[in-house]
């Protein structure tokens, strides 16, 4: 067994290890020596050994075997051992460890020790890792110590009380009276502790807050003393007397003055005095000023004072020190909602901060700039923001892009400007925008009918330069497909004419289709656009036919399906092709599927269909049905196939796969009138829980079953789950249930949809297992369903 080395030797050995492996070796040897030392009888070096263990723990190596040693050392009579023992307890133990319970008794004894340093050790440890039980046990002791005469102990006891209040909120009542009396202390340490305790009490309990409002005059007195007093060497920091206490008192005044006229009035003079008298050349002075400004802005202060505060913030903004600028912007962010005009005055400086190299400052400047965009300054602000977007750090891009979109949406001076801005953003940061941008932009473009020509030219040119930004490429493909004839016509008032031949356009689309950079959704867009061009161009229809038929054997199922459908459109339904592929109607704003969460202010809201995410082409679907009426098809509303638009990826793709087959069926003239939904049939009723069933036939073999559960007992049901089983040849797909808890007395219901597919048309049965928790006990039950309403007896 190697002899134990002094702590410094060990540290030197660890630091001189060249590799991680060597270091681990040194530490393992040391830990073995430490463990051996612990097992030996009491000798003088125990504290030393524990100190070594704590150093090893700090470096990240396991040190749990030292916990019992900590407990032993805390109980030792020697001060040096107690001290390291308590330190070890604070570092190694927390309330989850069992060993922490063992030190409760030691702490209790040490709190009444004659030596104040031992008392302080116990107080520190309790404040650091005291569990709720320990706090409850020892709270009366702490209260007694708070009334002691020793200021050193009172200070520590106050901070321990803060921890107790955080752990066990009810004990706040115990400490409120003594906290009040501590405010008349002279010792700054005790005063500071008392203020922290009062802040904690007020934040947790509004009644306590009311009671402490009466202390505002006392606090004002203390602050005045600090601000106006002369130089005092023990409290001075760079010319300001105890700035830490000043900041703390200002914070308490803020909490007390919030929403209260009386308290705010009492503070007005003081705040004005602090704001004007504090020397702001050093950080210390700025810290006090900052806190004063925050307090003024948060309480009900008079307007002169508010103006003073905003001016101070303006001064901070012009300060050379980046720290000061950063906090100025943070504070301005808080008031930009209420004092908007005051902040607008500083817009120039804020916009300049966008160009600062510091990432934190940039972040703050971006937030504030986005908040400051208004109808009058939108053009200039947008220019700055777009410039920022091209050079901003990667983590801010998505945020900046979405912020720009929102601002553009709200304040766009003209449609052309709006489209230009969105295109610019897509070109600069297309990879970072959110998915809803594409449908939003498309909807915007369709609305601006006089700009179609201009838009499509611009997009075509953008497409030629860069096909890596998916959102941009998707929008460009859509536009080229839709407005291809305008592109090929070549003349356009708004931009320089460029001769685009049909081959060029088809080349561009083919490049997108074949590029490995294009995502599957983008390729879907491109294929549909190619198809649409077949009605808008005259010469190269054969080229389009060949492209489409190639993709009929593509590996991507989505593309393959589209290609096959388009092929069918060429071969069997060529007479309908022109009508099917004609120009899309204007998409209404905010129709379902346009999830426009932020800009809901002035948008005329269309009626939203509840819970149907698949229907952005709802409008075209209606148009399609009109067309089909003309062609003599059925007249029900169908789930539309994206062959008619290819607008939105995602939810539409689902519609495609289910409705693709329907489309062809429909064109062949099959009738698919939906059944009127049958009334719900109760299938289970036991113990207050009722389950009803409704059926809806979707197709010849498909069926959707909806199970609705409700609770008629007097207590809630939680963890409610349903499981279903069906005969082997039937396919079952359970959708997500609407919830898993049933409130009492039928206040709300839970629905679960189950989609069944019965291709072999066997006799349909379903067994449902219900499990839930009611009044803290778990229930489980099974019910068999043999007959489904709306189906005939054989289950077909």
């Amino acid at each position: 067994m190697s002899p134990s080395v002094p702590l410094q030797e060990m540290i030197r050995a660890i630091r001189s290890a060249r590799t991680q492996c060597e270091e681990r070796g040194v530490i393992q040897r040391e830990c073995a020596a430490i463990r051996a030392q612990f097992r030996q009888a009491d000798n003088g070096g125990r504290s030393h050994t524990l100190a070594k263990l704590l150093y090893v723990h700090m470096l990240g190596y396991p040190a749990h075997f030292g916990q019992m040693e900590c407990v032993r050392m805390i109980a030792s009579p020697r001060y040096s051992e107690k001290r390291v023992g308590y330190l070890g307890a604070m570092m190694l133990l927390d309330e989850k460890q069992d060993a922490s319970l063992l030190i409760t008794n030691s702490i209790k004894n040490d709190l009444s020790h004659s030596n104040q340093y031992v008392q302080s050790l116990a107080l520190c440890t309790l404040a650091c890792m005291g569990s709720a039980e320990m706090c409850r046990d020892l709270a009366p002791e702490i209260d007694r110590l708070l009334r002691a005469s020793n200021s050193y102990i009172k200070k520590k006891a106050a901070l321990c009380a803060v921890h107790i209040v955080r752990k066990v909120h009810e004990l706040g009542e115990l400490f409120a009276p003594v906290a009040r009396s501590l405010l008349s202390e002279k010792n700054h340490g005790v005063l500071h502790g008392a203020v922290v305790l009062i802040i904690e009490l007020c934040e947790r309990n509004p009644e306590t807050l009311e009671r402490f409002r009466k202390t505002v005059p006392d606090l004002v007195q203390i602050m005045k003393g600090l601000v106006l007093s002369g130089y005092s060497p023990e409290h001075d920091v760079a010319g300001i007397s105890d700035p830490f206490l000043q900041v703390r008192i200002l914070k308490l005044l803020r909490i007390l003055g919030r929403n209260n006229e009386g308290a705010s009035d009492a503070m007005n003079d003081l705040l004005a005095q602090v704001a004007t008298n504090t020397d702001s050349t050093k950080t210390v002075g700025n810290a006090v000023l900052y806190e004063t400004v925050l307090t003024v802005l948060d309480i009900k202060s008079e307007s002169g004072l508010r103006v003073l505060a905003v001016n101070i913030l303006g001064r901070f903004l012009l300060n050379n020190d980046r720290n000061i600028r950063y906090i100025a912007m943070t504070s301005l962010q808080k008031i930009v909602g209420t004092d908007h005009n005051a902040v607008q005055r500083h817009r120039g400086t804020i916009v300049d901060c966008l160009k600062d190299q510091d990432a934190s400052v940039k972040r703050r400047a971006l937030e504030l700039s986005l908040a400051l965009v208004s109808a009058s300054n939108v053009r200039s602000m947008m220019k700055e923001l777009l410039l920022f977007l091209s050079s901003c750090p990667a983590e801010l891009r998505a945020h900046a892009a979405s912020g720009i979109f929102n601002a553009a949406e709200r304040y766009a001076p003209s449609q052309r400007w709006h489209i230009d801005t969105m295109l610019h953003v897509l070109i600069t940061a297309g990879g970072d925008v959110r998915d809803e941008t594409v449908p939003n932009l498309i909807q915007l473009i369709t609305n601006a009918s006089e700009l179609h020509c201009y838009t499509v030219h611009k997009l075509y040119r953008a497409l030629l330069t860069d096909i890596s930004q998916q959102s941009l490429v998707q929008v460009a493909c859509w536009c080229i497909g839709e407005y291809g004839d305008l592109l090929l016509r070549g003349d356009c008032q708004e931009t320089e004419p460029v001769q685009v031949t049909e081959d060029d356009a088809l080349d561009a689309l083919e490049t997108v289709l074949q590029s490995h950079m294009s995502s599957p959704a983008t390729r879907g867009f491109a294929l549909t656009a190619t198809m649409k061009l077949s009605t808008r161009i005259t010469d190269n229809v054969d080229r389009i036919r060949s492209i489409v038929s190639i993709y009929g054997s593509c590996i991507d199922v989505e593309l393959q399906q589209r290609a096959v459908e388009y092929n069918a459109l060429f071969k069997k339904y060529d007479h309908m092709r022109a009508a099917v592929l004609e120009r899309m109607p204007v998409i209404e704003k905010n129709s379902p599927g346009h999830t426009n969460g932020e800009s809901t202010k002035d948008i005329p809201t269309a009626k939203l269909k509840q819970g149907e995410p698949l229907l952005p082409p709802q409008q075209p679907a209606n148009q399609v049905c009109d067309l089909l009426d003309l062609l003599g098809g059925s007249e029900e509303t169908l789930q539309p196939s994206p062959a008619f638009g290819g607008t939105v990826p995602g939810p539409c793709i689902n519609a495609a796969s289910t409705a693709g087959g329907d489309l062809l069926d429909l064109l062949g003239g099959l009738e698919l009138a939906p059944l009127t939904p049958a009334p719900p049939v109760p299938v289970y009723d036991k113990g207050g829980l009722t389950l009803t069933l409704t059926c809806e036939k979707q197709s010849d073999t498909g069926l959707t079953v909806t199970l609705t559960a409700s609770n008629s007992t007097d207590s809630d049901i939680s963890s409610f789950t349903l499981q279903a089983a069906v005969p082997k040849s039937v396919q079952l797909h359970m959708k997500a249930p609407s919830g898993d808890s049933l409130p009492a007395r039928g206040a709300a219901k839970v629905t679960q949809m189950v989609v069944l597919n019965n291709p072999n048309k066997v006799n349909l049965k379903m067994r449902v297992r219900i499990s839930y928790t009611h009044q803290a006990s778990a229930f489980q039950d099974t019910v068999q369903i043999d007959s489904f309403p709306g189906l005939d007896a054989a289950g077909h």
Partner: protein
Amino acid sequence: MIKAILIFNNHGKPRLIRFYQYFAEEMQQQIIRETFHLVSKRDDNVCNFLEGGSLIGGSDYKLIYRHYATLYFVFCVDSSESELGILDLIQGGLSAAPARAVSAVKNMNLPEIPRNINIGDLNIKVPSLSPF
């Protein structure tokens, strides 16, 4: 509320670590590593406030740090603390104190300091590393 105080050197080796909320040892070391990564990337003339770390407690927390020669002093605080106040704390109060602990390790000569640091609601037991 101060959530953690970390002092580490230019290579990320911890010199003084104090967490005011319980974290498992693995978590603690991970926090130290992530903080070191974030802080060492910073230029010398940028501001001393960092936000956006995901590990140490989510959106409300920011890191306030100061770099002195070979040591980084990092405080992880939430929004109830004054940023400039913490900066003052580092500059005025703390740069003298653990320097003694560090000086014992580095065998440098630094002024004498108290055993317990008690500023605001901060209770630090300075581990005195001289022979007992």
